[in-house]
């Protein structure tokens, strides 16, 4: 055991004492934070103002579109102001609700000024997202749709740079919207949207909604319906109360916090997957290095192959635990920081503010952390054993890639399952997958939140333990037989012989 621990410490130090390891560990949560912020950053900075042209053949829809654009701009300004106000308010003061519908910057600013910090900067409104520009005279004067579209197509194909009348500089044209009177159906005017960018659908959807709404309003008038009644009906919503039978009487209402409890295991499954996948690679590199360097021969003259295997498994497992502990630690530090300095308390506004507190409570007093550690350990043994055996049969990483391809494919299944198992955690697919030992750690970690039958929990756990023992036994045999071998990677037949040889 002493030698196994010496080997384990070296394995641990080799990986954990490098700058690259800690850089990778810090990079992981950083990537998540950046990924979460990218849509916001893109919305604020990345997406340029979309310049577009409207050719309205009906002659009456431009004011409708302009009105919709103004409402959208106002709403975006209100949202940006909300964030600015939240960042600049004094600690402990609850921010006033800022209306998105009837937002006026100056009025709202005056209202909430007492709640802002004295050194709060100036609010900068977001840049205009959509701007209508005048069409060229050659197009604006055309009244025939087919002739117009021939011209528009030719114009757009000639390049998107365009200097509209009344502007000093060229703009990049995003779209040309042609509104025509539709006479054959009862859908109102038709929108023919010409654009090279088919991915950004915001403008098209905004115009579609504005035109549809206007058509409906005009139809109500034409049919003699009371506009106020219709508006009231359109905004009416069915009240939905989400309740959970698991909760105590009087507290059945399901909120964000409950959803968090439901989805947190999925987050941990992802962590589990990344951890097992990362350290399995480390293990493979370690064995291949010792084999290709022939250090293995010196090691085996000093320790038994069982000690060597055990040392490697323990050392790399410790690396994995440090990795996971660092991720969870980072998460907790961020949460604590938000609670301590971000002004988020259980009394603060909105359920969203309670996420950090609830996450910490969840980690402290629920089964998630112990289950995570248990499944990490058992899952790691399973995959690590197989990878150790693969490493022992190959001289180079290139040789090992053939076998590793299969392992990676195997490991992709739980990652894909992550998308549907939380929705149906006790369904037939989830139940089936949880009985396959290679998937048990990931699937059961996901299922336990939904209270699967006890036989599933205990049965899959027992099967996983048995499989771990078998894998360690079998892979130990392969490791002992293959680790001194050089030359061509062992064939599957040869590996099978090592496995069954008496």
């Amino acid at each position, binding site marked *: 055991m002493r030698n196994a621990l010496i080997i384990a410490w070296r394995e641990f130090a080799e990986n954990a004492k490098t700058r690259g390891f800690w850089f990778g560990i810090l990079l992981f949560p950083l990537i998540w934070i950046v990924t979460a912020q990218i849509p916001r950053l893109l919305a604020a900075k990345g997406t340029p103002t979309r310049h577009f042209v409207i050719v309205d053949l009906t002659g009456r829809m431009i004011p409708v579109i302009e009105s919709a654009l103004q409402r959208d701009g106002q709403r975006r300004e209100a949202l940006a102001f909300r964030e600015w106000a939240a960042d600049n308010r004094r600690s402990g003061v609850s921010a006033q609700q800022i209306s998105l519908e009837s937002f006026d910057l100056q009025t709202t600013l005056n209202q909430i000024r007492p709640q802002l910090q004295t050194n709060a900067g100036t609010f900068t409104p977001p840049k205009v997202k959509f701007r209508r520009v005048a069409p060229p005279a050659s197009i604006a004067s055309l009244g025939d749709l087919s002739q117009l579209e021939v011209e528009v197509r030719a114009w757009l194909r000639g390049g998107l740079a365009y200097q509209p009348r009344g502007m000093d500089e060229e703009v990049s044209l995003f779209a040309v919207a042609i509104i025509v009177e539709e006479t054959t159906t009862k859908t109102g005017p038709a929108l023919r949207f010409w654009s090279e960018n088919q991915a950004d659908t915001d403008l098209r959807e905004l115009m579609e909604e504005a035109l549809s709404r206007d058509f409906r309003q005009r139809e109500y008038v034409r049919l003699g319906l009371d506009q106020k009644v219709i508006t009231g009906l359109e905004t009416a919503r069915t009240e939905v109360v989400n309740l959970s039978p698991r909760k105590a009487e009087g507290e059945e209402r399901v909120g964000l916090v409950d959803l968090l409890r439901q989805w947190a295991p999925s987050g941990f499954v992802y962590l589990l997957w990344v951890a097992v996948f990362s350290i399995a690679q480390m293990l493979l590199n370690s064995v291949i290095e010792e084999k290709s360097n022939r250090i293995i021969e010196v090691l085996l003259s*000093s320790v038994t192959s069982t000690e060597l295997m055990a040392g490697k498994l323990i050392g790399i497992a410790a690396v994995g635990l440090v990795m996971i502990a660092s991720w969870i630690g980072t998460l907790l530090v961020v949460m604590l920081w938000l609670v301590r300095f971000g002004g988020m308390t259980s009394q603060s506004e909105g359920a969203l503010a309670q996420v950090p507190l609830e996450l910490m409570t969840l980690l402290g007093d629920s089964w998630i952390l112990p289950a995570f550690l248990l499944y990490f350990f058992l899952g790691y043994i399973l995959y690590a054993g197989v990878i150790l055996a693969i490493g022992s049969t190959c001289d180079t990483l290139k040789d090992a890639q053939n076998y590793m391809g299969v392992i990676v494919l195997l490991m992709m299944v739980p990652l894909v399952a992550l998308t549907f198992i939380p929705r149906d955690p006790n369904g037939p697919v989830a139940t089936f997958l949880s009985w396959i030992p290679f998937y048990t750690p990931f699937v059961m970690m996901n299922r336990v939140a939904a209270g699967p039958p006890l036989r599933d929990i205990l049965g899959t756990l027992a099967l996983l333990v048995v499989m771990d023992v078998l894998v360690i036994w079998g892979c130990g045999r392969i490791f002992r037989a293959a680790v001194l071998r050089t030359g061509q990677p062992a064939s599957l037949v040869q590996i099978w012989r090592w496995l069954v040889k008496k």
Partner: protein
Amino acid sequence: MPSFVCRLGLGYTVNSLKNRWTDPIMNTALELREVTKLYGDFRAVDALSLVVPTGCVCGFLGPNGAGKTTTLRMILGIIEPSTGSISILGKPSAMHVRARVGYLPEEKGLYRKMKAVDLISYFATLKGLSRRHADERALNLLNRYGLGAFAQTKAEALSKGMSQKVQVLASIAHDPEFVILDEPFSGLDPVNQGVLEEIIMDLRARGRTVLLSTHVMQHAERLCDRLIILAGGRSVFDGTLAEARAEVPATVRLKSLDSLEGLRDLACIRGFKALAEGGWELELSAGTDPQVLLEACFVRRIQLSQFHATETTLHDVFVKKVGLGAREAVCR
């Protein structure tokens, strides 16, 4: 015929083997009895028996594919023999005495990211030394053999020669009683070869047993007290350097205008061979001093224009013992 010259065909005398296995006074560090290693139908080692006395440097020679590395691995307990038994430092397996055995394999490598001192210390701790003691030993050895300045250098930054020296030091850092060095000189420049010879001499001076596998006959001649030559998995010679030299007759090349017929009656001459470039090569019987031949020429009034006595080298012995077999192995 005296029993000590009754050879077994494998290079042993019946009595010498009997004495080695039974004489309690003789201190044996390593003993192999009828050890065979089979890989399928292939006999890598074939009924190999040998004895290495304590405190000697024993050369382990043989052509490529002779079974040297397989034998060394069996001695170390890394692989099991198919049949036969091994005794090392009085135990049936090196695993029982691994803290007393050091090993430098033929193919050498180090952990690239580890510092020289940590590498030596790591292997020493695996052999039972405490971390502190191992660190001290590692530093002492590095300083003693000229690598003190590189103690904190990572293996990837060391030259090949330095790396190899670090490996040698790692194999002896725990001060083993028995050291197995497999091709330790390969890839070393003459200066570093000298350092390595110094290390081996130091080991012998302190009574350690060294089993030295090498292809360089000059090293074996300089360093080894005993020699074992392997060919085709079998031992073809086991003895001292003098005994090895006695295996191959010495030759004398001479030129003379006179007839050599007068020498035909000399018992110490085993054969005459006319040389293409002129002159003769005379093969002397084992143990004959070439001076005897020179004196006979003088007595018989044979005027010599050239007289060149060649001493038998280990190279000659090696080629004679394994040459044909080695060629066959290569051809296979």
